[in-house]
């Protein structure tokens, strides 16, 4: 970065968590971060959100797990992960020494599982925040996703919040009728921030074989295809809650980041774009610094919610 950008203020805050800049990487698209070191100076990012962790290891879904669609991709990875125990002993250990907040995405099938993972992670050195994935089905309640019923989303938030000493971010599912209801429910339950959107549920079919293109039949849509939906939901949620909103969904460039911040996002997460351009996150940081300098702004924070409507 050029010396002329030294004084540019890109800092934002998510609850008590202070970020160097608003650019984070989204869970499930950045591995455990070290994979990207050949391409990215991790220390330049605002934060990294590592792959979703469950209480026990999960093998994930059978192949095929991914398929490209127009301007996007569907995935049904099935939450493959090493489990919280190995995550702490191996992955967090390998992340010691990096100068960037590491947020851990957690997921579970029951309230107890969420509670247990939060307990396991509480006090682990290097864990700067928890992001709660509430899009998985609640097995005990017949498979209804925690993320689709406001009361259940609130219960998960409370369970994690009560067992965490770091900021708790709840990642919202877009597969609901009114996302602002869920956002308000988790805010009332004590969430320090919300991040949105998770993937949109979709499907792809091969007409020649007459089969679904994913072994799981349905999967989560991500990439530039979902950006307009994500922008709309960030805009609506930012008006409905007073906690910070983290925008996710099809972000791949500086311009995309600016648009999400104008819609009301305090920070953003870059996801699928990491697969295509592993340097996307660092390039967006560079781009934001240039923008703030060129616009002669005192801080990037001036942009948050700055959408002009008339």
């Amino acid at each position, binding site marked *: 970065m050029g010396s002329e950008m030294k004084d540019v203020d890109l800092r934002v805050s998510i609850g008590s968590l202070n970020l160097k800049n608003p650019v984070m990487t989204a869970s499930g698209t950045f*591995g455990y971060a070290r994979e990207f070191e*050949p391409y990215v100076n991790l220390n330049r990012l605002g934060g990294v959100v590592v792959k979703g962790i469950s209480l026990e290891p999960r093998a994930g879904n059978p192949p*095929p797990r991914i398929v490209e669609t127009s301007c996007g991709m569907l995935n049904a990875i099935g939450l493959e992960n090493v489990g919280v125990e190995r995550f702490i002993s191996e992955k967090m250990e390998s992340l010691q020494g990096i100068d960037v907040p590491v947020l851990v995405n957690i997921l579970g099938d029951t309230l107890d599982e969420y509670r247990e993972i939060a307990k396991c992670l509480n006090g682990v050195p290097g864990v700067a925040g928890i992001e709660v994935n509430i899009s998985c089905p609640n097995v005990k309640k017949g498979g209804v996703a925690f993320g689709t019923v406001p009361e259940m989303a609130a219960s998960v938030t409370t369970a994690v919040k009560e067992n965490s000493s770091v900021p708790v971010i709840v990642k919202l599912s877009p597969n609901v009728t009114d996302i602002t209801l869920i956002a308000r429910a988790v805010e009332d339950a004590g969430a320090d921030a919300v991040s949105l959107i998770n993937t949109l549920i979709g499907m792809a079919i091969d007409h020649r074989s007459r089969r679904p293109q994913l072994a799981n039949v349905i999967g989560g849509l991500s990439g*530039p295809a979902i950006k307009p939906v994500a922008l709309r939901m960030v805009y609506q949620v930012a008006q409905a809650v007073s906690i910070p909103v983290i925008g996710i969904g099809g972000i791949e460039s500086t311009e995309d980041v600016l648009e999400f911040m104008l819609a009301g996002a305090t920070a953003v997460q870059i996801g699928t774009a990491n697969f*295509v351009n*592993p340097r996307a996150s660092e390039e967006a940081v560079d781009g934001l610094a240039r923008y703030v300098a060129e616009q002669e702004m005192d801080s990037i924070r001036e942009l948050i919610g700055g959408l002009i409507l008339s």
Partner: protein
Amino acid sequence: MSQFQEKTQIIRIERLTTDIIRLTLESSRIVSTAKPGQFVMIRTGNGKDPLLRRPFSISQIANGKYFQILFKVVGRGTALLAHCREGESLSVLGPLGSGFRIHSNGPNCLVGGGMGIAPLLFLGKTMARQCSAPPLVVLGARNREELAPLVDDFAELGLSVHPATDDGSFGHHGLVTDVLKNLGLGDDCMTYVCGPHLMMTAVHLFCKDRGYGCQVSMETAMACGMGACLGCIVPLEEGGYGHACSDGPVFDAKELLWEVK
């Protein structure tokens, strides 16, 4: 980890058949660390559609700065690549994956089918230089048109090639496994295999039966090529999955779960 994201210039485009294309690209950094069996991820366009990079084996390196990929036009990504022009640039990520483990004291046998022949040329060239004895090479494809140009590449290295085609228009009329059975491979032979899944299954079973070593290079759909998306899985014998991009693409065939019908 020596991996790079580079704008590489297209030096040469060769149309081996109507739909089989060979690209020569320039990147001294990628070439300097590339090993046989490794692959690169290439953006086939500059826009958002198609979105994802496509994986290609490195089929040959030359002069410390050139590398080649070989592909058949099978979809939108490869169709776009086929319409590139010499002098244009492509964004390339690599070299990626683990590569073949070469047994320097042989005997070695390379077995390739269709576009799976691509990584074996780089391997054969490396072996011709490193190993005490040159490897045997068995190559299969649908017909003469598809196979002959690829056989020529190996012949130029001074390697003896045993071709097989589905229609009998070039070499043995039938499968590469038929050829393997009649080759009289040495007892401690190591095979290096890349091709259609059915062919690799058959070669694995043949090697298992004879007690030969067998390394296979697996092809799957993948989004990132660097262990992040977890999309490129292959089922393991011990249960669970391996990742073609980071654990492979080359695996010991014994470690994989083969569906045998």
